[in-house]
């Protein structure tokens, strides 16, 4: 991709707060018109990253290219980006219209144009009849939309959103997610969205960067992150994963981990994991099928024996926690409640079962490749 395709490009950006590396040698390209999310647990550096793009923090090292120009040392008011703040940060002494017009007035646009654009922006967020209200007279969701209108009315190259839905209740949040997505599609502006909520990121984003301890673990489309997590951290942070670790014992065209009679885990790409090496795999709960002990799993499949421990009926699906003695660990398995007549409906705690899945679903994870990625975030 050439430089023109990027709205924002970070190059080796590092931010130190004292000894703390809030952002550590981060490089990232965000494409024009994209809905891009920075996702990670609190303290992973995602907000610091956003604040550096906005200009509220200056990177200790590195460059931030905004439409081709390095703006890393520019003050916020000289960057063509606008921010929707987590706490909205609406000016309490100005009414809604004047809040939205703030940026346009600063640009000294003709009065008629300001009025028109403010009106259009308020109509976009369905608040055209609230222009004369003070921010304190509006609900949280409305204030949120005013903040959005106030930023978008300036038609920035990039819109930055810092956990903007964090303060809203779940229902309103879902509704605003869809609205934001619609607005993003209609204005065609690049959105950079910071969140710690993986579900929110998956719902809204074109691409997501998963961050951990100031570094990017993986960048990809939601499906890519879910189906092909690059690190153990991503596998655990996006959705739920079962982890398998073992020594590659025999490689018969495929990598194999065997656990005694009729128990095996097979995975592809044996060239990455030669015989004798330790390998780390992950598999998603919904890829695993549960069989009765007497049922014969397909020859090519992975097979492990287990004992059902917990059953959580979720309506559409049922979630099982299953002890796997061969691995001395517990698996999470999600089954669709299809209730086909011949099928067993629900497994009961204490029942013995056979877990089986196609080797295709195993992800080979780099063994401790990234710093401290062994702990699991489920």
């Amino acid at each position, binding site marked *: 991709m050439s430089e023109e395709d990027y709205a924002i490009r970070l190059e080796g950006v590092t931010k130190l707060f004292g000894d703390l590396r809030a952002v550590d040698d981060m490089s990232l390209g965000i494409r024009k018109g994209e809905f891009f999310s920075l996702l990670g647990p609190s303290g992973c550096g995602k907000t610091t990253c956003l604040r550096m793009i*906005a*200009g*509220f923090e200056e990177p200790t090292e590195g460059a931030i290219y905004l439409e081709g120009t390095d703006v890393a040392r520019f*003050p*916020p*008011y000289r960057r063509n*980006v*606008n*921010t929707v*703040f987590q*706490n909205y*940060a*609406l*000016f*309490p*002494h100005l009414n809604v219209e004047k809040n939205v017009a*703030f*940026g346009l007035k*600063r*640009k000294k646009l003709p009065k008629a144009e300001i009025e028109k654009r403010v009106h259009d922006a308020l109509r976009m967020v369905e608040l055209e009849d609230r222009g004369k209200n*003070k921010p*304190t*007279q509006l609900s949280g969701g409305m204030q949120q939309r005013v903040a959005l209108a*106030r*930023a978008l009315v*300036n038609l920035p190259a990039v819109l930055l959103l810092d956990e903007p839905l964090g303060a809203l209740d779940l229902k309103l949040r879902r509704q605003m997610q869809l609205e934001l997505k619609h607005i993003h599609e209609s204005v065609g502006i690049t959105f950079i969205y910071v969140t710690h909520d993986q579900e929110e990121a998956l719902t809204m984003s074109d691409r997501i960067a998963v961050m951990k301890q100031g570094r990017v673990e993986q960048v990809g489309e939601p499906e890519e992150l879910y189906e092909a997590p690059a690190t153990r951290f991503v596998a655990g942070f996006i959705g739920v994963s079962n982890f398998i670790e073992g020594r590659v014992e025999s490689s018969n065209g495929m990598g194999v981990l065997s656990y005694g009679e009729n128990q095996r885990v097979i995975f592809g790409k044996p060239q990455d994991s030669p015989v004798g090496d330790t390998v780390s795999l992950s598999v998603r709960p919904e890829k695993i099928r549960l069989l009765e002990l007497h049922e014969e799993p397909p020859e090519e499949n992975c097979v492990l024996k287990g004992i059902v421990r917990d059953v959580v009926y979720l309506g559409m699906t049922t979630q099982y926690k299953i002890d796997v003695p061969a691995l001395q660990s517990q698996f999470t398995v999600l089954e669709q409640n299809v209730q086909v007549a011949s099928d067993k409906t629900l497994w009961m705690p204490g029942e013995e079962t056979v877990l089986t899945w196609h080797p295709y679903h195993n992800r080979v994870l780099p063994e401790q490749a990234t710093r401290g990625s062994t702990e699991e975030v489920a």
Partner: protein
Amino acid sequence: MSMDASKVTPSPPAEEAAIRKAGLWSRFVDRFRGRSFLVANVLLAPTMMWLTLFLVLPLLVIFVYSFGGRGAYGDVELGFSLSNYTKAFSPLWMPVILRSFAFAGIATVLTLALGYPLAYFVAIYGGAKKNIFLILLMLPFWTSYLIRTYSWIVILRTEGVVNTSLSWLGIISEPLNLLNTPFSVVLGLTYGFLPFMTLPLYASLEKLDKSLLEAAQDLGANRLWTLLRVTLPLSLPGVVAGTLLTFIPAVGDFVTPDLLGGPNTLMIGNVIQQQFLSARDWAYGSALSFSLMAILLVGIFLYVRKMGSEDLM
């Protein structure tokens, strides 16, 4: 003063809006009903008694005196005559009243000009050292006002610190006449009332949500524009409180002009003091006091209405 009450307990936005909607009367009734009425009484009783005994009653006495006359031995002869008030508003005192307002006004503007950057610095950049800065600001107040004012005599007099330094540096050949001038009085007032201006300003700037300053910059405002469009309007209650706390006592001050002033710096406070102490005409002094109070009340009312700070009244 009611402005203090509104500073200490800012009501949440929603409640505020609801209160504003409700009429004054129902507001009053709601506040003083049932249990909360009892609580309010218990909490306010000591202050109310104190104020009644030592403010309201003396004011009433003074008010009654102001219609009387001077007895042969400097006592007050009660009566009803408006002559004290006609004398109070006579052209004789016009220059003195105007001078009092001018001195107090200049001192207020100067304290605002000095206090605002100071308060802004402590509130925004003070960080963990905020309290140290505030203590430093209050430190001079651990000394008596009289002594602090006297010390200005040492600094400003002909053989004082300023004059000796300047002539030693060769900047002046003759000592400057600094003391006993309007300059020294305004300087003394400015110095004396600076904390009264700075503390309310600090209180309102400290409350200011810092993310609003970021939001302004994010929307293209440089520092000056942010100051004028966001910081200043939002700290306006502090500015109003500070100017009132400075201007009102400064207008009636008599210690500063007495110690630092000269023949042409007579302020209305000096006149009132003279009537009570030297001239022994308490009735006239009372009328002058009440006239000053009336002028100030009208002025404050107009000022606060102009500044749109309904919270203060």
